[in-house]
């Protein structure tokens, strides 16, 4: 009942190429990209990307929003840790959205951040499916 990550290609260990499927109202947490490059292209629908500053070392306040934009079909975006953190969400209540993501080098853990406090929390990311087969966890 949340967005799904579907692995399409793992480029001989050099990258992960995946398709994300977002239902109406689905969004991600604020997250980093574990020192990797992250490219995103919208294949269907629209996704809102909100950029955040990294919280202060002793983060204990609301995180600072840098900017936000709505990405339309076929638009591309890029982010890495030196640019900042972001939240991606499908703000439509009527249309699902689909996006293509390329991460290089591949990573399966990242940090998620609490917008109210800046506290971070390491998470392991999972795939809903890989190469067309449902991943059972």
């Amino acid at each position, binding site marked *: *009942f949340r967005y799904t990550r579907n692995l399409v290609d793992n480029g001989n260990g050099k990258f992960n190429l995946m398709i994300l499927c977002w239902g109406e*109202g689905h969004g991600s947490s604020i997250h980093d990209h574990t020192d990797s490059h992250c490219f995103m292209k919208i294949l269907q629908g629209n996704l809102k990307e909100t950029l955040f500053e990294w919280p202060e070392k002793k983060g204990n306040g609301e995180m600072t929003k840098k900017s936000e934009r709505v990405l339309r079909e076929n638009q591309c975006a890029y982010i890495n840790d030196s640019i900042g953190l972001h939240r991606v969400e499908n703000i439509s*209540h*009527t249309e699902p959205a689909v996006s293509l993501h390329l991460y290089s080098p591949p990573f399966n853990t990242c940090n998620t951040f609490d917008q109210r406090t800046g506290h971070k929390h390491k998470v392991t990311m999972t795939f809903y499916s890989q190469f067309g087969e449902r991943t059972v966890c």
Partner: protein
Amino acid sequence: LPAGLSQWFPALEVLDVSGTGLTEMGTELLSLPCLHTLLAKNNRLGGPGSLPKGLEQAPLARSLRVLNLSGNRFSEVPPALLQLRGLRSLSLGGNRLHGIPPDIQELHSLEFLYLGGNFITAIPPELAKLPSLRYLVLCDNKIQSIPPQLAQLHSLRSLSLHNNLLTYLPREILNLVHLDELSLRGNPLVVRFVRDLTYNPPSLQELAGRTIKTRNVPYAPSDLPESLVRYLSLASNCPNPKCGGVYFDSCVRQIKFVDFCGKYRLPLMHYLCSPECSSPFSSASQSSTSQSESDSEDEASIAAHRMQKVLLG
């Protein structure tokens, strides 16, 4: 809808008329005996005639499983809709709803309910009477509080509450045993410690009522005026397991923070019979008494066990 619809396609099961500018759907729907999915999103429905009259008797009332009316102009849930007794999935996302009718409980087969992106200010406790509800979306509304009865939604797997006006949650939310996902971001959830909210000292009637209940003073309906007999039957038990007391109208509301998975602090509202009472356990846990300071830690570890994908930040 075209007049000959049910004659041309009597076996129709899925009808998608989304994005066609429809302002009403008439009796053509009533004679489609096999229709189980109706998608009518992004239209101009919302006025009278949006749904046909006589729905109650039509086969549609029993056959329809999925109804999507998102992106229309409904300012209230049309009463006719509540006749669709077989409905499993309903979406009214992105409309102009200001509330949810208590009669929503009539849709007793409902598993999926999407009401995101409206102007809803409150949730009726009757929503909790939907026994099969698994997925409830209330994001992007104007909801200020969650009724504690919502904890009775035993089948609930996913609850979306982000972007509302919630400052706290009822502690009963920890009773949602099967809840896997909870989104709470974009709510003005109380972050700092909040002093005990105003406590109005109990009236003499309340004090007398409490004494009768806690000391088990026997009484019979012939001993008291009917109004007082009714009053005594409304006693609520103080949830503090060490207290055993009761309260009627006068209770202390206290926000207690539950540390969630050690990362987030959820402000939960506790009701206690007096300021001297300490905050209670989650009533779903069967464990024995423990000190009040570690109450919130125990509540949290039980809750963390159950809620795996809390999306707070």
